[in-house]
């Protein structure tokens, strides 16, 4: 994401007092807002510009001038209506206002000594990274980062000396991350430790960072299987020259020994540059601070946009940003295909109080409220999807900001479901990400659009109401709409498929089953025993006849749920003779976690269950649901038994010449030779839906 450009649709009138207070707060809290820093920053711009012929970089550093300045300049620029490079004026202004063309033109490819150096503390364990001239360090890999002197900004997190070390993960499947040094606060005391390290060689803009080797049992378990072993592996190829601008090759080799790979920032697609997004979100952040200081209602921020626009990335960024001022935030996951803190297939509400820097499999958590939906697409049972979102959202008490991540499916039924989600969660802000590929995007949201576009269960045309609606849905939504134009689409993960990422997240969740040292195959772990009589069972994703339910459950991944008795008796289909109760539909209820049914004892009527759920939460579990989630393939293949492993075979080749042995393959890249004309599915669907309702 090169640059995020901003358009504001509507501003809500706000009390000027509150605004002033927020501004004041910002200038105190935010190290970049005050006038004093501006001079430092300007100097930084000059240096950076002369060092790196990279427009992004210059813009980035300069844009640290702070929101207030930014806005003033934006206004000025607008009056001039500069439009370089044929950008459309509204967007181009932003670029022109924040870059300095003069310094750019002079800063061509002159090589200067590296601006960073590395001091070894403990071989292959700990290294000190000394950064000067506000040089950004772009990296892949993983490390535990703490700041010893000055402060740095990583993916929404601001690190100061004395703070808890921050675990950061940038696998090669995702964008590289940046360590961005922030301008110094006034009169920073140089600690004894740093003095010892650097002697008197501390300049005004020196930043000292400690990088430690990062070991995390969860992530190590994921990378212990050969399929995912190379997620963090970074091949060193033809990047030396670019890296040398940042640090010497020897130094970069030292850092590689802990799995921290400095890379060329030109070749790696850029994540959100902090400040353009930050200023776009200034209003959000203001409200967050207001909520903290004045106890006003915490903002509810809903993220939406087409597939691959970067919603999850922005969600993590926003979480980190809000955490730095608020300390806690809730995250409501409505994108069941690519979930952040749980395995996929769940709608969840998670309380977050630690920064999240990395892909989902590096930070699986136990959510506060969570419900198993069982399919990977909401379209398989849209009514239940909406009810599931409503159920989970009811767990939000409004005591901290809420970030709502929505799905990238924004066409046809997807749009209706998004509308329902918006009406359910009542966002105070909607951040809409607009990717470059306009075909995949939803139309730009406007207040009119929000009021006229029907939802799936919620119809708001002419005040009409569906009988399914609860009362709280009737309150009209009136959010602040922020429209973020994304420069580039997020790169596609070419090494791994979405299903492999799901599998990685599952493995991370299952890690606590493993012994402290070493890795055991699933069939070598000791299971818990669950009598059939203790649970009701159901398969969410197919109409399985009760007689076949055991064939589904055996060696399957299940969600452990606790449904109340009313729900259970309502859905009770029939009890098999001496078998567990089979439900006829998926109950909407709290899920406490996942488990693997390792075996079924047909004589003693027992399930053998492996589950990472804590012991004290297990007694309440009364439903086992299986659905689209399955045991990660590497874990199935890991088993060794005498004779053939059940469900694992090499006799049934997927890629042999046998027709039809392969699953349904959806090829979206197939081209039509002749363009066909016709209405879009979205339109057709909308009218159909209206007909249904009337």
């Amino acid at each position, binding site marked *: 994401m090169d640059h995020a450009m901003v358009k504001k649709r509507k501003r809500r009138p706000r009390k000027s007092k509150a605004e002033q207070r927020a501004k004041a707060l910002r200038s105190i809290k935010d190290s970049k807002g005050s006038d004093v820093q501006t001079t430092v920053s300007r100097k930084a711009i000059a240096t950076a510009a002369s060092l790196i012929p990279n427009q992004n970089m210059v813009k980035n550093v300069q844009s640290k001038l702070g929101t207030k300045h930014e806005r003033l300049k934006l206004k000025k620029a607008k009056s001039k209506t500069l439009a370089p490079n044929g950008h459309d004026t509204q967007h181009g202004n932003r670029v022109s206002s924040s870059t300095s063309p003069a310094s750019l033109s002079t800063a061509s490819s002159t090589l200067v000594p590296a601006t960073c150096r590395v001091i070894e503390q403990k071989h292959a364990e700990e290294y000190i990274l000394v950064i000067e001239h506000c040089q950004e360090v772009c990296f892949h890999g993983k490390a535990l980062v703490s700041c010893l002197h000055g402060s740095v900004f990583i993916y929404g997190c601001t690190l100061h000396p004395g703070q808890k070390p921050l675990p950061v993960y940038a696998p090669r499947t995702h964008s590289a991350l940046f360590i961005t040094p922030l301008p110094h606060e006034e009169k920073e005391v140089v600690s004894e430790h740093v003095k010892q390290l650097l002697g008197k060689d501390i300049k005004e803009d020196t930043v000292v960072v400690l990088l430690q080797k990062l070991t995390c049992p969860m992530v190590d378990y994921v990378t212990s299987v050969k399929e995912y072993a190379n997620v963090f592996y970074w091949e060193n190829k033809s990047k030396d020259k670019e890296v040398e601008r940042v640090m010497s090759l020897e130094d970069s080799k030292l850092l590689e020994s802990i799995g921290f790979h400095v890379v060329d920032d030109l070749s790696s697609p850029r994540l959100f540059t902090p400040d353009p997004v930050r200023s776009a979100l200034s209003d959000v952040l203001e409200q967050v601070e207001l909520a903290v200081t004045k106890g006003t209602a915490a903002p509810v921020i809903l993220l939406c946009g087409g597939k691959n626009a970067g919603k999850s990335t922005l969600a993590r960024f926003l979480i980190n940003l809000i955490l730095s001022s608020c300390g806690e935030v809730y995250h409501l996951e409505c994108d069941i295909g690519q979930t952040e803190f749980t395995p996929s297939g769940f709608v969840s509400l998670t309380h977050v109080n630690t920064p999240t820097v990395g892909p989902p499999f590096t930070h699986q958590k136990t959510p506060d409220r969570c419900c198993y939906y069982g399919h*990977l697409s909401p379209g398989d049972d849209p009514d239940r999807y909406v009810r599931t979102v409503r159920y989970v959202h009811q767990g939000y008490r409004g005591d901290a900001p809420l970030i709502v991540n929505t799905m990238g499916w924004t066409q046809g039924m997807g749009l209706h479901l998004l509308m329902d989600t918006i009406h359910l969660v009542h966002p105070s802000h909607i951040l809409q990400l607009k990717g470059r590929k306009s075909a995949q995007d939803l139309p730009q949201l406007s207040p009119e659009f929000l009021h006229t576009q029907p939802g799936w269960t919620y119809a708001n045309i002419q005040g009409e109401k569906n009988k399914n609606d609860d009362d709280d849905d009737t309150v009209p939504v009136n959010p602040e709409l922020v429209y973020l134009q994304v420069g580039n689409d997020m790169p596609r993960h070419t090494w791994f498929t979405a299903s492999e990422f799901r599998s990685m997240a599952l493995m991370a969740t299952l890690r606590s089953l493993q012994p402290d040292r070493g890795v055991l195959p699933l069939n070598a772990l000791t299971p818990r025993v669950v009598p059939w009589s203790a649970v009701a069972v159901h*398969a969410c*994703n*197919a*109409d*399985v*006849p009760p*007689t*076949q*339910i055991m*064939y*589904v459950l*055996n*060696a*399957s991944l299940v969600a452990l749920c606790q449904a109340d008795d009313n729900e259970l008796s309502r859905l009770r289909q029939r009890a098999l003779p001496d078998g567990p109760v089979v439900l006829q539909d998926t109950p909407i209820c709290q899920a406490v976690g996942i488990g693997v049914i390792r075996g079924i004892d047909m004589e003693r009527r027992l399930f053998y269950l492996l589950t990472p759920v804590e012991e004290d939460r297990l007694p309440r579990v009364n439903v086992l649901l*299986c*659905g*689209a989630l*399955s045991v990660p*393939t590497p874990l*199935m*293949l890991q088993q060794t038994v005498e004779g*053939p492993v*059940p*469900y*694992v*075979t*090499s*006799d*049934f*080749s*997927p890629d*042999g*010449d*046998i*027709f*039809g*042995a*392969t*699953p*349904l*393959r959806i*090829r979206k890249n*197939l*081209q*039509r*030779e002749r363009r066909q004309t016709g209405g879009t599915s979205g339109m057709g669907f909308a009218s159909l839906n209206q007909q249904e309702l009337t």
Partner: protein
Amino acid sequence: MAARIVGWASKSEWIQIYQELYSNDPVQIQHALDRVVAWKSRLDTKMPIAIDCTSSLTAVWLRDSGAHVRGEGGSSAPNSHDLFQLRLAYSMALARFVNLVTDASQDKFYIQPVHVMAKEMALPEWMVSLRHEATHRSLPSLPVLRSGARFALAWLREKYWEPQLQQCGELPGGAAEKGQLDVEEVRQAVVGLLISFEQHQFEILSERSTKKKRSHHTTLLQEVLSNLAALMAGNRETVVACLCRRGFLIPTPEQTTALGLTNYDVFPESDGSELPQIDKKFQDFWKPIFELLHQSNSIPPLLERLVQQLGTYAEEDLEFAVGWIALITTAQNSQDKKSLERLLHKVKVELPWRRLITCCLATPNKHTTPLVHM
């Protein structure tokens, strides 16, 4: 071969379900269908499409036979509502079958039309039009839908279940003998169908027929052809063998007279230097069958069969056999788009020439020299 995850716990479970799906026992079929749902739940989107198609077609088939039995029992005749539902269910299952089969083999940059893909997958054209009618036109009738389902199930068996069984190291056909008709039964069925084909075709081509009569027989002919097509899958050899017999491609004297093929002495007394030719009328008569053969790539086997049998024909029959061989092998790209020659010309490139010549030399007769010369 790399290991993978499947929905069945073991090879034997898969084989059992295969046997049950293709059995005649409703209880077994129902059991298999239930189990396939369990596989579907396990595999979710990773379900092999052939199993998916087989189970949905079999499910409708089972319901149909259930309705049929009820009707015969007299307790409750299937009402029109039930029958309509059956037609809907058949139509959907067949449309899905054709689409999934053709989609799965899209391997080009551009989308290929369904009928092109169908040809590649040896799906006859009438299956493609069945899909088209089911989705864009009025719902096809039950008899033709039944033929379609029968064909599709046989096709799936030939393309997926049997090859898969062999890949697992099992003997072909070892699975389900009971579901399959034996060779003699098939032969009788083919002969029966060919005879009715001849009857209808005779009426259609007869100059005495009225327009109304012609269209009536055309409809009946189409049904015969679709039944024949359904039988073709898996029984190609039998159909080809029947065609080469006297009374079909080799006409009896009565047939020659009835068709008005000038007189019995069709071919001028030849010394063997010139090859006999098949009358244009007789070509037109058999054209629908050749089209059918072409859809399942069966013309080369037919030719091979004719060549192999050269030694067994009586003198007068030999003229026809050689005539057909000559027609197939020398077919020119005729201007007449509807002519049989044009169709045969397309096949020519795929003929196994070397094998044919060896065969031909093994059964010498007076026409051998010019035949080999060609």
